[in-house]
């Protein structure tokens, strides 16, 4: 039975997340954008979430009682927190990408380790290290080496664009999932995920990136130098390889989409509020050619938003039901990446000179929003995923 209504649990979660966004995120968002790297982690926000937020967000923590639709709950939360600020969303002390990888590839023991970590006193983060300087989207070409050495593995390499590396490795007792190859000549088949704990002397943050947006959150270059880890830190005991990295995308993509759509909705809400103050009402039912340009822009923005959001919700619905969603997840990401880009760019135009100014948040949302079409597979990579599926083509047929 087709339905477009959320469960009460999700509605409640939305209200709770909205109150956090309004009270604990929005007031600080500009500051954390302006003082990239100079600011600390937004500890007040983080501690609030860690200490009290669990009553609302605990469904997102490992070990929590699993609700009916865990992923549906997650995307509604990430949408709303990112509506507050996507940088703050990235600072949420929850398992995120690293945790996701463990859930997808880890053994029971490893999953328990993750759970334990997130039950401690101190806020904890994880991160995932995949990309390298010579390979962006082509993650099968990674060069970071993992060499078996006695009772452990030794990792060497350099990883780029590691989101939250500083939070996971320096600011908490977190950990990093590193994708490395056990045989550089063997391509995908030799790539394995490894778990590196904070405090390991072989891992070092070489550089924090200066970014266009997303400045409340760190993105780092991480160096692994003779980084020794115990045997049991090979995730999944070596059985789960590169496909594990790919499998995480089925949920990572709608998750990223939802985050982007939070930014886009922030823009739409703001623009409509400002226009409302000017006495502009949007005549939704009027034929398009009879509208004003600004009405049509707003309707187009809302339409595009809704289209992308429904694709995202559908992907989440499939994930929660265990229905394979590779195509649908990529669709949500393609659409959301474009939607947030266009909506945030257009939002500035609609507000004129003020839209371009830091007096409003629109310019920040445009900068923040651009990440959505770039990470978790660029728009191009996701098109490739969709195209291969609908055409029945292999990676060789369609490069």
């Amino acid at each position, binding site marked *: *039975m*087709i*339905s*477009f*209504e*959320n*469960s009460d649990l999700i509605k409640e979660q939305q209200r709770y997340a909205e109150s956090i966004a309004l009270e604990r995120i929005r007031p600080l968002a500009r500051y954390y954008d302006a003082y990239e790297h100079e600011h600390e982690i937004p500890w007040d926000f983080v501690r609030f979430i860690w200490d009290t937020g669990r009553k609302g967000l605990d469904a997102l923590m490992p070990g929590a009682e699993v609700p*009916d*639709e865990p992923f*549906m709950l997650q995307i509604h939360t990430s949408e709303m927190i990112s509506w507050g600020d996507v940088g703050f969303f990235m600072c949420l002390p929850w398992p995120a990408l690293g945790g996701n990888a463990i859930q997808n590839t880890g053994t029971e023991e490893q999953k328990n380790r993750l759970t334990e970590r997130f039950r401690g006193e101190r806020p904890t983060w994880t991160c995932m290290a995949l990309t390298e300087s010579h390979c962006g989207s082509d993650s099968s070409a990674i060069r970071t080496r993992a060499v078996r050495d006695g009772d452990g593995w030794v990792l060497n390499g350099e990883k780029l664009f590691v989101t939250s590396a500083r939070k996971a490795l320096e600011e908490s007792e977190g950990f990093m999932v590193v994708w490395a190859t056990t045989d550089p000549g063997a391509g995908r088949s030799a790539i394995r995920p490894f778990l590196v704990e904070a405090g390991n002397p072989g891992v070092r943050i070489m550089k924090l990136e200066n970014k266009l947006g997303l400045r409340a959150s760190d993105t780092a270059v991480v160096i692994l130098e003779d980084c020794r880890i115990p045997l049991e830190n090979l995730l999944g005991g070596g059985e789960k390889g590169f496909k594990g990295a790919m499998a995480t995308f089925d949920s990572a993509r709608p998750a990223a989409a939802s985050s982007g759509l939070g930014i886009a909705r922030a823009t739409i809400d703001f623009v409509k509020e400002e226009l409302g103050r000017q006495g502009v009402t949007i005549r*939704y*039912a*009027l*034929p*398009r050619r*009879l509208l004003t340009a600004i009405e049509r822009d707003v*309707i*187009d923005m*809302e*339409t*595009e938003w*809704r*289209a*992308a959001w*429904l*694709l995202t*919700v*559908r992907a989440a*619905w*499939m994930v929660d039901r265990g229905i394979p969603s590779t195509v*649908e997840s990529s*669709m949500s990401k*393609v*659409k959301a990446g474009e939607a947030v880009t266009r909506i945030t760019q257009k939002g500035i135009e609609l507000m004129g000179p003020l839209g371009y100014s830091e007096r409003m948040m629109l310019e920040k949302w445009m900068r923040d929003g651009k990440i959505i079409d770039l990470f978790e597979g660029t728009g*191009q990579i996701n*098109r*490739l995923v*969709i*195209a*291969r599926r*609908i*055409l029945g*083509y292999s990676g060789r*047929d*369609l*490069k």
Partner: protein
Amino acid sequence: MYSFEPTEEQKMVIDAARRLAAREFRPRMRDSDEKGEPDPAWMDEGWALSLLPASIPEQFGGFGANSALTWVLAAEELAWGDLGATLALLAPNLVALPVLRAGSPEQKAMHLPAFCNDAWAPGAAALMEPRIAFDPFALETKAVRDNGGYRVTGTKCNVPFALESDWILVYAALDGKTQALLVPTNAPGVTVGERERNMGLRALPLYSVSFADCAVPASHLLGGEQGCDFDLLLAASRTALASMAVGVARAACDFALDYTRQRTAFGEPLARRQSIAFTLAELVTDIDAARLLVWEAAWNLDQGKDAVRAAAFALNFSSDMALRTADRAVQLLGGYGYVRDYPVELWLRNARAFGVLEGIATV
């Protein structure tokens, strides 16, 4: 809880509509377009699906309840077959569903049984007007109160089956608001004019109709004394058109996908060119997105929620999407896209109707 799974009953409707579209609509599509007449088999065979009687309560001769969602699920499949056929088959909706939604008990009793018979019977609605500033909220066709009833004056265009129907549901401005009146086609003052000739929808009989001081009894105002909620009727109409836009787009996209996978150029299938593969990926994504918007609008209608915005989003997105998809399909076929031996040029002509024509379908 969100759900994207039709009921078992709806799945059966989808299957039946799909079979009808493939078996009856597609093979006759080209001929009917060239001849400018719907193939009788469309209505005969299509009526066997009993979609409309299944939407009308027993007390009025039917055997079910109306569901916008079921309609859009069926309409997408039907329009995948042919848009002209779909609009022809579903033309009875134009009278039946507004009466069902907004009619007085007397109007329901009077009009609905006619649509529960064994044979398809046409329905006609007159919303559009032949002027470039046409605005459904500011109609030039006026209804004025006169002698306890109304007098209707104005000119309409693109009225489906005006000549063939006994009744026309005429939309007119009454006290500055759009209302609908049930007018017998043979009433004095009603003149059914020429067949319209449009770029597409050529199989569908559309007429211009003029009303010259045409007297209508008070009881024929849709909804009786208090009139009807036109916003709701328009939202239902737009949702219907949007669902058909998805069907037309899917037809064009399916065809282009098969074509580019089979056609070889420069030594490999066209679809292995990244620019073509990406185009297809974008089209299928937008088709899915449009379908979800349509479903949401239909769900809103069924839930009795305000569907104006949802319907606007659905039609806004789907109409552009269908046009773009049909255009890209023509493009992907190259010269074959331009000739009438192939169906894609027909889909392009039909796809342009969405976002331009109003009120020729409803759910």
